């Protein structure tokens, strides 16, 4: 384990930024945190989490896939991708760090999504252990330990120091870049912090929340539940939950007419939207009830059915904080638990 004095935090960030682009949570002027590129003077936010998740780095909201240029009867096909630069994302919390494992299962499965893959290869994740979890947190329900988050490097901020440990060759390479600023140390301070935070985690209102009854084995029971009508009755059909979610991964591909060609891009889609998966024959999900159901079926039933029981949720709590009508996966799972028989 390495130790960095917090008085050298700026130097540490600067040293990393000298080698590659560095992103970290920074407060915007409305007081919320977002990932922003580091530049001299940029301060690390002390907020627990960012409004938008860290998935943006690998799966951005919009992304050009291919461009077509028309010249008479000729069509030129242009790959708009430029080689990605290496980058570091600093300050990723345990929930978001786990979300990459979930997204990998979607985008890196055959056929591999090369756009996502390229970003993953160029990115190094530096996670930061949580010290002040909030009432909306329930990552422990998915076996995540926020006091020891996964990532290429794991960090703990305690007292006047930042403690770091590399978990992968990428992480080791990163720590080598800042080796003059850090010194080897024992793990007593980190252990003490983990013990203290673990005690808080046990007191969280959702500490005992579990999705264990859900999975492919109860597909029809959950799908046919009569409770979906009530659960979805006041859903606005907006995309907030899906867009702040670190694991929602649906996208749409659209063509934009540029006047002299076509710009084909993909952008996040939301199962909450009325034209989601609309096909030539029409839309398979006619009302908000079916669209709402799709989101939770995907996370609690379809995803675990296809991924050895792993749920499509990391318990970050963003949807709990941000849904305009305060309807969310915790309320849905609790309401439907009884149907899982």
């Amino acid at each position, binding site marked *: 384990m390495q130790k960095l004095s917090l008085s050298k935090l700026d130097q540490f960030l600067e040293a990393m930024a000298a080698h590659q682009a560095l992103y970290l949570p920074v407060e915007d002027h*409305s*007081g919320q945190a977002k990932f922003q590129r580091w530049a001299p003077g940029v301060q690390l936010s002390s907020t627990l989490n960012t409004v938008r998740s860290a998935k943006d780095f690998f799966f951005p909201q919009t992304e050009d896939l291919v461009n077509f240029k028309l010249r008479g009867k000729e069509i030129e096909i242009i790959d708009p991708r430029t080689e990605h630069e290496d980058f570091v994302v600093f300050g990723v919390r345990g929930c978001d760090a786990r979300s990459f494992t979930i997204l990998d299962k979607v985008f890196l499965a055959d056929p591999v999504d090369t756009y996502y893959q390229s970003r993953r290869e160029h990115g190094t994740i530096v996670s930061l252990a949580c010290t002040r*979890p909030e*009432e909306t947190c329930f990552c422990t329900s998915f076996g995540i330990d926020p006091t020891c988050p996964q990532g290429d490097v794991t960090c703990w901020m305690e007292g006047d120091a930042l403690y770091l440990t590399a978990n992968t060759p990428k992480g080791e390479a990163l720590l080598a870049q800042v080796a003059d600023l850090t010194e080897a140390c024992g793990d007593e301070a980190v252990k003490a912090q983990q013990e203290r935070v673990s005690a808080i985690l046990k007191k969280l209102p959702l500490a005992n929340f579990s999705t264990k009854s859900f999975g492919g084995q109860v597909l029809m029971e959950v799908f046919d539940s009569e409770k979906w009508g009530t659960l979805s009755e*006041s859903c606005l059909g907006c995309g*907030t939950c*899906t*867009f*702040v979610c670190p694991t929602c991964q649906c996208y749409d591909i659209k063509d934009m007419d540029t006047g002299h060609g076509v710009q084909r891009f993909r952008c996040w889609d939301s199962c909450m939207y009325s034209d989601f998966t609309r096909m030539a024959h029409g839309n398979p999900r006619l009302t908000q009830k079916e669209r709402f159901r799709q989101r939770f079926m995907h996370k609690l039933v379809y995803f675990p059915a296809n991924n050895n029981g792993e749920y499509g949720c990391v318990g970050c709590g963003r949807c709990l904080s941000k849904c*305009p009508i305060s309807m969310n996966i915790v309320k849905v799972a609790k309401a439907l638990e009884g149907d899982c028989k």
Partner: protein
Amino acid sequence: MQAAMISRAKELLQGGQVQRVLGWKTGEFVYDITPAVFQSVEELEAEFVYNDFCGNNLSKYLIKESRQPGKVLVFLKPCDTYSFNQLVKEHRILRDNVYVIGVPCEGKTDGETLKAAGVRGILGLQAQGDRFLVETLYGSQELEKAQALPERCQNCKSKKHVAYDELMGEEGQVLQSGRFDMVEKLEAMTPDERFNFWRGELSRCIRCNACRNVCPACSCEKCVFDNDNSGVAQKAAANSFEENMFHIIRAFHVAGRCTDCGECSRVCPQNIPLHLLNRKFIKDIDTFYGDYQAGEDTESRAPLTNYTEGDVEPSIVYQRGGN
């Protein structure tokens, strides 16, 4: 108030005057209230709530609810009644199928506002006079209520109900508020400063459509931005122009109909002060056509859909230096 509301709702439900009750339902925490339709006395007793967190404006749900069989009872706060009237005026709510009970409101806060005030790990909350006592994972905290209310409630425009069949509690008054102060500040900016202000805000937009979907004035059955045949449909803003366009078009479309209920800013996950766009229109309408409050009544002609000889000419924009 909550107990009296439940008791009155039960009476009306049992007496057969109404078949359903539209209200607010408790959640996991103290603040995560969900709008809900209650069908039975048991449901009302178990889950109906009216507290400092019932900020959701229920009027828009009546577009759908007033078209269901039977009559629906709805509880409306003063500012919700303006949206209600406006929707009745636009023939979106079928008035005869709704029984409105006006309920008093001392301002409604929400989890996000408390968090913005620095409260973390909220476990419980009690209102005591003009203070909130908040129980958190990290100890107790006391807040002045006025500081823990969202902007729309700090600048409350009216505690008077403009529509109801029955009123509970004491009726309030239309209030003088500082709701146009920020608009005036924006007007005083140079065009470049103002453009930069709005870029700083709108660049955070994630196009979740929450502002549009919650807005009582946005009641089109198919929004132009969802309609592929419109040529402007988009699921994500491809560039800053599209980011601006969505919000500017929306503000124009609700101009003269927006009652300033503030739901757009409440639901924005990115804290974009969207209400300022609408308030600019409201302020301009007040200036050009005389004071007008959308939703104040259900009969009058709205300035933007009316013609009088004294109407302002479009060239006014030049006289005002682009403001």
